């Protein structure tokens, strides 16, 4: 079976700065893959390349057996790539349900169906009680969850999560982890970027470590955390507790 997502020799340069150099990764169907690495490793850049915010300087991106390298973000969403933002980008003047409806409209052209889908997703993500609240009135943890809900409403095949668990209290993080598992059990592949290893390691099936724009190591989480190269990359970084 072909991988759901593949990057082939992707480079991204910003002026003289190389954010990603020759990155080739693949994500199989039904996996939860963690993309980790110290600050400035190029995780966010790679993430944005996959989501279609900008095209790579070089290399190609394949999704579901097709070359999507030059497709804009909206087109990729229609093909089944859903994403969240590290800095939450809710539609602040809209209610929670309306936020989710925007996502649901990708696959439901009839308003009533989109609304139904949105309610379903809110139920799934545990936001149903907050449906009629303005997005700007949500607490930070809820806003994160709204990001996930909105992306899920687009019925993605691949869900890209950008640091959705970072900065939450332990209880909130637990609920978050449970939600990610639930998403996978619903048959959606997950690629999550996280900075903090200890949160993601128990959750993911496979971890890819980026460092200085390159793939450093990839493998089972248990092997990855013991890898000396990874420990070295994280050394001096106070978050390297997982090692």
């Amino acid at each position, binding site marked *: 079976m072909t991988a759901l997502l593949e990057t082939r020799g992707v480079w991204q340069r910003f002026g003289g700065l190389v954010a990603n150099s020759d990155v080739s990764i693949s994500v199989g169907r039904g996996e939860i893959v963690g993309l980790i690495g110290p600050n400035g490793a190029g995780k966010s850049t790679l993430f944005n390349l996959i*989501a279609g*915010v900008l095209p790579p300087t070089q290399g190609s991106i394949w999704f579901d057996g097709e070359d999507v390298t030059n497709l*804009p*973000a*909206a087109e990729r*969403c*229609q093909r089944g790539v*859903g*994403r969240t*933002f590290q800095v939450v*980008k*809710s*539609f*602040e*003047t*809209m209610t929670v*349900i*309306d936020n989710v*409806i*925007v*996502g649901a*409209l*990708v696959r439901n*052209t009839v*308003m009533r169906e*989109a*609304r139904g889908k949105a*309610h379903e997703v809110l139920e799934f993500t545990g936001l149903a*009680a*907050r*449906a*009629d*609240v*303005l997005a700007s*009135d949500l*607490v930070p943890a809820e806003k994160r969850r709204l990001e996930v809900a*909105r*992306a899920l*409403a*687009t019925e993605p095949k691949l869900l890209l999560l950008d640091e959705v668990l970072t900065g939450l209290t332990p209880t909130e993080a637990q609920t978050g982890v449970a939600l990610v598992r639930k998403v996978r059990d619903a048959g959606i592949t997950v690629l999550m970027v996280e900075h903090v290893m200890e949160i993601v390691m128990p959750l993911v099936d496979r971890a890819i470590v980026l460092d200085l724009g390159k793939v450093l190591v990839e493998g089972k989480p248990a092997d990855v955390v013991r890898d000396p190269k990874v420990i070295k990359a994280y050394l001096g970084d106070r978050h390297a507790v997982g090692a």
Partner: protein
Amino acid sequence: MDKNFAARRRRDLIVAGALATLAALAPLFVKDVYVQNILILTLMYAALSQSWNILSGYCGQISLGHALYFGIGAYTTELLFTKFGVLPWFGMLAGGGIAALIAMGLGYPFFRLRGHYFVIATIVIAEIGLLLFQNWEWAGAAMGITIPVRGDSWLKFQFLRSKLPYFYFALGLCCLAWFVTWWLEDSKWGFWWRAVKDNPEAAESLGVVVFNSKMGAAAVSAFLVAVGGAFYAQFLAYIDPESVMGFQFSLLMALPAVLGGIGTLWGPVLGAAILIPMTELTRSYIGGSGRGVDLIVYGALIVAISLALPQGLVSLFSRAKAKNQVKNQVKGATR
């Protein structure tokens, strides 16, 4: 929750129907031509502002150049009528179509601009339009066009003896603009526009093609405004560039929506219902001296309302609702 939503939409529709009926009956009681005039202008600006609101309020692309579309509607109709004998009804549609096309043509370069740069570009393009029309000999240049009088006729949309037909047309246009907004509010486009306004990047990630959304909003908005311009030209029976394309029209379309509540269904109507009579009354009662007192009062009111109610007058009505919402939030938070 969905019941609430459906109920609210139904209520909006019923209220609108009731208001429209009331308005339609108004001429039975108002015989004074001066007052009728004010009513017609109020309805027209309500319609214009409602149309402006689609692009600027819902989609968040603040345009202060809508006078261009207004003028195009007026000129298309009158040029077709005086030069080619095309009936104003067709001219009106042609004007709307041309305005929508121009809006989309301008959209290509304009929608790349953000914030102030976009607003200024809209002002500038309308000024260019104004200057070009002032120098366009065939279209009457600065002298404008006087619409030949052919007597009262619905066919030619021209009435000398009574203002009532204009009144009913303005009412119809206002209802149309309101209904289009109402309908769009709960449609794919309505949701896309609000998403684009709040956060284009997030909208894009949810499959919204931001550029196309803006183009759609611009086209609908320009079409309706141009129809308004065509009406105004017939109503005045005389047009010149300054009197149908001047900057003040751009402002008079934006102001009611802003005062009433930008990006809301009722804002423009409410704003126009207060602002336009106020403008006309201050002008004729205290403006007669030519000493600018009307301007002082008018300007001061605008300052006061924008400072006191940044979300517009509609927010007065939703205060009660907001209280309910707080209650819900408390409930939600304790769960």
